[in-house]
């Protein structure tokens, strides 16, 4: 085990701390060498300001301060107040209903504000009792129904019934998943 000898080290340190003098001509040699260098360009306040701007600096920061700055940075990066919401990719979605005696059938739902004029359904060529409509839907949950001859509401027999029917008429629900 090494036994530190503080007295011995203290003696060494005291001795090494004594002043040391060097050649008195050192100052003159330094100034002579400096005098041979090209004159320092000063450039006035503009140059001084530029030097101040480009001068690298050491910034001392506590961990808490660094965390706060990082949080602000993330918030600024993520915050886009005027950025329009990017529409999610829409997929074509087909609706089919059998209504042999109908003259007109419309598809109405959350996706077209329950407006009967916006999505009229078409008879299929093979079977005139079958009505179809294909509309683009973005991922989400939609309630819908078929409006037959402008008066009769018909839920989709092939789809789950919507529980939150606020209109008192039968309706179905479809959920479109994201891709």
């Amino acid at each position: 085990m090494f036994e530190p000898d503080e007295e011995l080290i203290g003696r060494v340190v005291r001795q090494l701390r004594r002043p040391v003098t060097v050649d008195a001509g050192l100052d003159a040699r330094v100034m002579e060498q400096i005098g041979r260098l090209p004159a320092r360009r000063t450039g006035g306040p503009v140059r001084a300001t530029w030097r101040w701007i480009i001068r690298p600096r050491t910034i001392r920061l506590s961990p808490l301060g660094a965390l706060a700055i990082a949080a602000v940075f993330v918030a600024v990066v993520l915050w886009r107040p005027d950025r329009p919401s990017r529409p999610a990719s829409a997929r074509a979605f087909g609706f089919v209903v059998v209504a042999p005696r109908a003259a007109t059938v419309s598809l109405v739902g959350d996706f077209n504000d329950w407006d009967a004029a916006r999505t009229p359904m078409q008879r299929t060529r093979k079977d005139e009792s079958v009505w179809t409509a294909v509309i683009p839907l973005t991922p989400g949950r939609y309630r819908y129904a078929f409006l037959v001859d402008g008066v009769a509401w018909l839920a989709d027999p092939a789809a789950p019934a919507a529980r939150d029917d606020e209109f008192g008429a039968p309706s179905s629900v479809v959920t479109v998943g994201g891709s």
Partner: protein
Amino acid sequence: MGIHSVGTSDVEAVRRVLGGDTDAYATLVARYRDRLARYAVHMLGNREDAEEALQDAFVRAYRSLERCDDGARFGAWLYGILVNRCRTTGARAAKRGRVFVRDEAALNGVAHPSAAEQTEGEDVVRWALARLTPEYREAFLLKHVEDLEYEEMAQLTGAGVSALKMRVKRAREQLQTILREAERV
């Protein structure tokens, strides 16, 4: 820090030099010469190399004075330049084979202590210091002779605090071992 700033005097001198007043630099040279010379002489072991490193450090500092972020810390900044110059000069001297030649002229440059203080013999201390590796010698001098904090030493040397603590500890142990062996001879 061991090389303390001299407050507004340094700030003013640095400002004048940057403004084109070359003579103002003489004030800074005179102010820091002897303090830096002590480190250079102990680090390099002879006055010739120490003066070369010192002169080089002063000239380099003048040429890059714009990089001195804070005039009030000119002394510490200059010290960092000297530490690097001593490393370079020491490495060059080692290549020449003059790793640490005890120099009577350097000893003559040391202010004479009182008779009581001189009894242990300065030559032995210098000889022991010379037997340390440059890294250990540098760390020991910065910590114990120049009285720097470890964080300041880390800034000057580029080494980590824990590495510097280890170097100082090993330097103390080796110095103690060398000096005790010398006492027994």
